[in-house]
């Protein structure tokens, strides 16, 4: 079972490699807990308002494109697979395969952002951007529909920001791996990026049904 492992360095504050690796993993999970609580505040806000305004939220959500949302869900799920493969090859210290799957993940992430951009543009054309120019039919739903779209943009916007940060981190990783920089000679940076990426994925798994698939 023991594969050829990439060489790793131990920082001064740690006793050994095992302690260092475990510390980084625990640190990342703790960070993800803070992220869950961060999104949790938004999800709570959304759920409270949705419970209070079932009818209007249903009306408003029909302006979202389920096919595009579904497509993006597939894209992100696939990117989780490619990320898992990246981590797999990183643990074995295989640079070429790492690079290949990392680039694939980045391509999928960018696809997601582009599709999201088209969706936002569509909302803009329809006049569904909250603010003085917000238009919604029927007019008696306008206020609450605006609330729905405020939350839609806040939640998907924050998620898209996380995707963007993921892309930037992966871009940096790609460069470092390409020039065989010492800091990525161990697999931990890739492993941590992988954990983060799966988290970003899972957030979308909740966002998609909450926003796009509201039952009648």
């Amino acid at each position, binding site marked *: 079972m023991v594969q050829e492992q990439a060489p790793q360095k131990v920082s001064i*504050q740690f006793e050994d490699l095992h302690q260092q690796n475990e*510390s980084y993993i625990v*640190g990342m999970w*703790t960070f993800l807990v803070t992220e869950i609580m961060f999104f949790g*505040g938004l999800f709570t806000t959304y759920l409270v308002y949705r419970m209070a305004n079932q009818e209007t939220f249903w009306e408003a959500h029909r302006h979202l494109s389920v096919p595009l949302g579904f497509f993006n869900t597939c894209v992100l799920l696939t990117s989780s697979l490619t990320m898992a493969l990246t981590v797999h090859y990183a643990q074995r210290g295989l640079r070429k395969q790492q690079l290949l799957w990392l680039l694939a993940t980045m391509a999928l992430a960018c696809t997601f952002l582009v599709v999201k951009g088209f969706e936002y543009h569509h909302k803009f054309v329809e006049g569904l951007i909250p603010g003085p120019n917000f238009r919604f039919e029927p007019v008696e739903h306008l206020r609450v529909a605006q*609330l729905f779209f405020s939350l839609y943009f806040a939640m998907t916007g924050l998620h898209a920001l996380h995707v963007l940060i993921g892309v930037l981190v992966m871009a940096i990783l790609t460069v470092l791996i390409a020039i065989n920089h010492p800091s990525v000679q161990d697999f931990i940076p890739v492993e941590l990026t992988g954990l983060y990426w799966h988290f970003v994925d899972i957030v979308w798994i909740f966002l998609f049904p909450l926003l796009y698939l509201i039952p009648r």
Partner: protein
Amino acid sequence: MSVAVAKPGEIKHNYLNAGDTVRSWLLTTDHKRIAVLYLVSVTLFFAVGGLLALLIRLELLTPQGDLMTSENYNRVFTMHGVVMIFLFLIPAIPAVLGNFLVPLMVGARDLAFPRLNLASWYVYMAGGLIATWAMVNGGVDTGWTFYPPYSSSYSTSQVTLTIIGAFLVGFSSIFTGINFIVTIHKMRAPGLTWFRLPLFIWAHYATSVIIVLGTPVVAITLLLVAVERVFRLGIFDPALGGDPILFQHLFWFYSHPAVYIMILPAMGVISEVIACFSRKRVFGYHFVAFSSVAIAVVGFLVWGHHMFTTGQSVYAGMVFSLLSFLVAVPSAVKVFNWTATMYKGTIEFRAPMLYVMGFLGLFVIGGLTGLFLASLATDIHLQDTYFVVAHFHYIMVGGTIFGYLAGLHFWWPKMTGRMYPEGIAKLAALIIFAGFNLTFFPQFVLGYLGMPRRYHWYPEEWQMLHVMSSAGTALLGIGYILPIFYLLWSLRNGALAGPNPWGATGLEWKTDSPPITHNFEETPIVTEEPYAYENHHQQEEVASGTGASTTKG
């Protein structure tokens, strides 16, 4: 205990003289140096918040508003709250004492993520400076609670900037929290099991859990207020379709536990100091340890007691009231155990111990008056009065500052290698205790009589009590200024401390004062329970007395 005497002119290698350029301080990843950076910056912000408090109390000397307008008064008390809470009380003990001591106490060379630790200081400074900038540019008048729709739609003050400042400072404490959790989980020295950890570590662990779970929620909530303000997205403003009560729920979900972020580390300090100066192990170690965790857990379930008068459901109010009473249980467990620790101990009234005694008094008063406010019926009368102001100052300000000063004096020899002057330090402790009570006790009476908070006009018959309170502030000011002078004085002129001037247990006392950059010459191995003062006592007797060769382990 023998005290190592350094020969004159002999300078031992330590973290302070490891480099003296500005760069070596600003780019350091040494947790001890970062603690010193925090010590300086936290002290500066405390001075700012203190001056604002002084302005408030000056204004309240007379029943009329003669020093400032109502608008300016709103800004002054808001900024006093923002600075003191976000920039002093929350980071004070964890970021200064915790940063310095957590790695030392667990026998590690540094925190798990030294660069993240440095980043936390920079983020803290960025947040602090943005908040200060907002202050200079007109300040904020919403109260530190930022309640919408006033904060999001109506206030013309610098709400957005201040929120960005608070948001950043929140992230700095998240960084610290993550660092502590990982360090305590993964970097304990060989033999240092969970139940051999000092209670200071347990307290910081519980604090970190609250920071990690709570801070992100207030971060996103404040961010939403800022977004609502800037982009007119309707989220909390009822005119835009939102619900302001939801904001209060989300805000207090963090901001009530934030009180425990302030007080739990202080409780950790108390446990260390009280055991050392009573020469006894902490009574009921496991109970004190678990009560920290219990406070962290139950503290998350009581936020609704800030909202008894907002029209939240009566049943919710009853549950929140009951749960709030429940927090008194672990708090009382701690107080009883500390008292029992002193019982039949060999008590030494050093300055840190005086602060501990002060803490116990203030904490009991603050805690018990909290029960008045947790009761639905009495809270209707006392809500938003000076009774509340006095209560939270006793518990989170009195508690935290007394814990902080106790810890700062107790570990000052470790941090600097020098002793502080004992006599004047004791005097300062007494002045602060007297000043604190004179400032805030009259406020209980004022609140009970109906004086609302956040007003600077009041009926003339209350002037006497307000004058007492303001006089207390002056006394308090003197008490706070004294340590700044004598502690700075001691840096050059204090007696050399040696590794363990108090004869205390704990790994931090087993290394030099000040410690070397990587804390220990070799990784320590722990073989005994914490606070084994009695064992050491017996060992000394054995060594000095009868000449028996057996020692107790």
